[in-house]
C-alpha cells in the first residue's frame, strides 16, 4: 500500500502533542495533517478523501466521541482511532461500541500507533472498494428502465418468466427480452451473480455510506 497518498487527520487540542504525533506519522511515511480543534477539521472541503482519523478523547466543546459520531453519520468508511489519557473501562467500551477501530492510551508507543493506522488504512481501503463496487452496481441499476427494474426484482426472487409475465401483465417473450437486457446492463454472467449483485445493493449499511 502506498501510504504517502493516504490522508490521515489528527485532532488534538494540545498543540505540542499534535506536533509530535504529526511528526511521528510523517517519519513513518504517512502523510498526516493536524487540527487543533474539531471545527477546523470539519470545515475542510474534502472530508470524503480522509482515509483515517486519530482523535483525542478529552477535548473542550466537542470531545472525541462526538467527533466520531458526527463522522460516522456521513462518512462511514473513515475509520476513527481514539487516543486518551484516561484508561478507564467505561470510556473504552463506549468508544468501541460506537464503532471505533482502536482505542490507544497516551503516551502512545510509535509501533502501536503505526500498526493501528495501518489496520485503519486497510479497513478504509476495503470499505472504499466496497463502496466503489456498490456505486458501480448502483449506477448500473439506475440505468435500468422501470420495467427492467421490476423484472430484476422478480428474477432475483426466483420467479419464473411465466410468473413474472403474469405479475406484470405482459407476455413471457417480453419478459425474456427484458431479462436479457437486465443481465447485460448489470454485467452479470449468471443468475447467481445477479442475485449476488442484488444482495450487495441491498446491504447498503455494510459499506457504510449514506444512500445517495
Amino acid at each position, binding site marked *: 500500500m502506498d501510504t504517502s497518498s493516504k490522508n490521515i487527520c489528527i485532532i488534538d487540542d*494540545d498543540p*505540542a*502533542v499534535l*506536533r*509530535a*504525533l504529526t*511528526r*511521528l506519522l*510523517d*517519519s*513513518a511515511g504517512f502523510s498526516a495533517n493536524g487540527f487543533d480543534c474539531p471545527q477546523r477539521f470539519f470545515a475542510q472541503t474534502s472530508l470524503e478523501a480522509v482515509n483515517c482519523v486519530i482523535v483525542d478523547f*478529552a*477535548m*473542550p*466543546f466537542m*470531545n472525541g466521541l462526538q467527533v466520531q459520531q458526527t463522522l460516522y453519520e456521513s462518512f462511514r468508511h473513515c475509520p476513527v482511532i481514539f*487516543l486518551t*489519557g*484516561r484508561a478507564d473501562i467505561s470510556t473504552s467500551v463506549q468508544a468501541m461500541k460506537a464503532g471505533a477501530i482502536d482505542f490507544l492510551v*497516551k*503516551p*502512545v*508507543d*510509535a509501533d502501536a*500507533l503505526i500498526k493501528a493506522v495501518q489496520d485503519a488504512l486497510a479497513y478504509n481501503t476495503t470499505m472504499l472498494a466496497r463502496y466503489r463496487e456498490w456505486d458501480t452496481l448502483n449506477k448500473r441499476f439506475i440505468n435500468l428502465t422501470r420495467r427492467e427494474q421490476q423484472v430484476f426484482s422478480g428474477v432475483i426472487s426466483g420467479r419464473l418468466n411465466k410468473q413474472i409475465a403474469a405479475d406484470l401483465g405482459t407476455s413471457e417473450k417480453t419478459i425474456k427480452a427484458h431479462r436479457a437486457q437486465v443481465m447485460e446492463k448489470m454485467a452479470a454472467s449468471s443468475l447467481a451473480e445477479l442475485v449476488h449483485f442484488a444482495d450487495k445493493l441491498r446491504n447498503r449499511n455494510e459499506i457504510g455510506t449514506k444512500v445517495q
Partner: protein
Amino acid sequence: MPPAFQPALAFLDTASQRLSFQRIGHALLVALAYFLATHLGLAFALQTQQVSTLWPPNAVLLAALLLTRPSQWWLLLLAALPAHLLAQLPRDVPFVHALCGYISSVAEALIAAGLIKTLLKGRCPRFDALFDASIFLVAGAVIAPFIASFIDIGALKLLRGSDEHFWMLWRQRLISGSLSTLILVPVVTISLSKPLRLIVFRHWINALTPLRLVELAVLSGGVLAVCAVAFLGPPFNDETHSLLLCTVLPFLLWCAVRFGPGFVNYLILCITLLAICGVQLGLGSLSVVSPAKNVLILQLFLIVTTISILLMTAMICERRRAVHDARSSEAQLRTSLQELRAETAQVLQLRHELTHLSRVAMLGELSGAVAHELNQPLTSILSNAQAALRLLNREGVHKNEISEILADIVAEDKRADAIITRLRTLLRKGEVQLQQVDINNIIQEVIALEHSDLLARNIVVSTQLAASLPAICADRVQIQQVLLNLIINANDAMSGNAPSERLLEITTRALDGARVEIAVRDRGHGINERDSEKIFQAFFTSKTHGLGLGLAICRSIVSAHKGELRVRNNKRGGATFYLTLPVAHLEPMF
C-alpha cells in the same frame, strides 16, 4: 422523783456534759495562772501607789477568754474567783472589796473579750492583720480598761475610802490595765494558740537560716543591753535619759520588720520587765525624777511604743502578705498565660496541619486529572523521540527537523516539570510564606491544574481577569488551595446540569484601590438562604462524601490573610463566591 427536781436534773446533765476533764483542766490552769499573776502584780506595785504598775491577772483572764470558746467562759471565770480570793484575802483585804476587785477584773476581761470576739466573728485576734490588731487595741486596751476602771476605783473609793483623787486613781488604773493587756495578752495568746503560733511564726521560722539566728541574737542582745543600761544602770542626767529611751525604738522596728509580730511582742515584754525592775529597784535613768512620775513616764512610754509597734507590725505583715499574694497570683497568671500560649501554639499547629491535610485530600481527588495532565507532555516527548529515531534511520539529512524535535522535547519536559513542581508545592506542608503575588497568575495556574477535570466533566471556564490588578501579599499555596476548593465546589454543584448550563465564570477586579475581589460564579443549584453562613462552619456538607471542612478551612485561611469570603446566590441560578483580599502595601524605598 418530784417534778421540781426535773429542771435541776436537766441542768446537772448538761453541766456534766460540759464538765469534761479537759475543761476542768483548763479552768484549774487559769486559776493557777491568775493566782500567780496576782502575786506578780502585787510585786510590781510601788509602796506609795494604790494601783500597781502592771496588773497581770486581768491580762491572764482576757487571754484565757480569747483562747477559748464563749461556752466555756463561765467555768474559767468561776475558777478565777477562788484564785482571786486566795490571793487577796491573806493580805487583809475585806471580802467585799476583794469581790469587787474580782468583779471589775471579770468585767474588764468580759467586755474586751466580748467585743473582740463579736467583731472578729469568734476568732482570736491575729497580730499580723491590721484589722484584728486595731480591734484588739481599741477593745482591750482602751474601752475595757476605761469601763473597768470606773468599777474598780469606784469600789475602792466607796469601800475603803481613800484620800487620793478619784480621777487620778482612775487614770492610774486605766493606764495600768491598758499596759497589762498590751504587754501580756499578745505574748500569751500567740504562745498558747496553735493556729496563731503557726500563723505568726510560720513565715518567720521557715526563713530562720543560721544567719538570721545570728541576726536575732544580735538584735535581742542589743535591745537587752540598751535596756539594761537604760533601766538598770547608774542614773544619768535628763538628756541622756530620753536619748536612751529612744534608742530602744529602732531595735523594735528592726525586729518588727525582720522577725514579725511574735518576736517583737516577746521583746517588748522583756523590755517592760527590765524597765519595771529598774524602777522598782530605783535604778536607771528614770530614777532621776520622783518614783510616781517615773512610773507614769515609763507606762506612757511603754504604751505608746507598744501600740505603735503593734500597729506597725500588723501593717508590715499585711503589706508583705499583699505583696506575696500579688506575686503568687502574678506567678499563677504567668503560668496560666504560658499554658495558654502553649495551647494556642498547639491549636495553630493543628490548624496548620488540618489545612495541609485538607489540601492533600483535595489534590487526591484531583489525582486522576493531574495524571492526565502529565500524560500530555509525556506523550509528546515519546512520540517526538520515536519520530526522531525513525528519521535518523531514513536516508537524507534531517538536521533541522531533528533540532526542532529536540527543542520540543525539552519544552515538554519543562512543562511536565512545572506541573510536578506545582503539585509538589501544594502537597508540601511548609511554613506560611507571605509574598507579593499576582492573583491572575494564581487563577490561571489553578485552572491549568483543574484542566483535565473540567474537560472530563464538560465544564467550560470563562475568565475575566482585570488587566492591571495590584499585587496582594499572600501565601501562594494557601490562596491556590482556597481557589481550588471554590472551583471544585462549583464543579460539583453543576454536575447535575445539562451540558449547556455547565459554565464556570471567574472574574477579578480591583475594589477601591485597597482590595482585590475574585468572584467564582457557577450555574449549579445555589445555596439555601438558611445555610449561607452554615456552609462555612466545620463539618457542614451537603455532599455525600467528604468531611465538610473545606469552606471552614478556606475561611480561616482568608481571615488569616485579613480578607473576606462570602457567598451570594445568582439571579439566574447558581451561586457566586466572593473572595476579597487586601492589596500589598509597598514598602517605601527610603
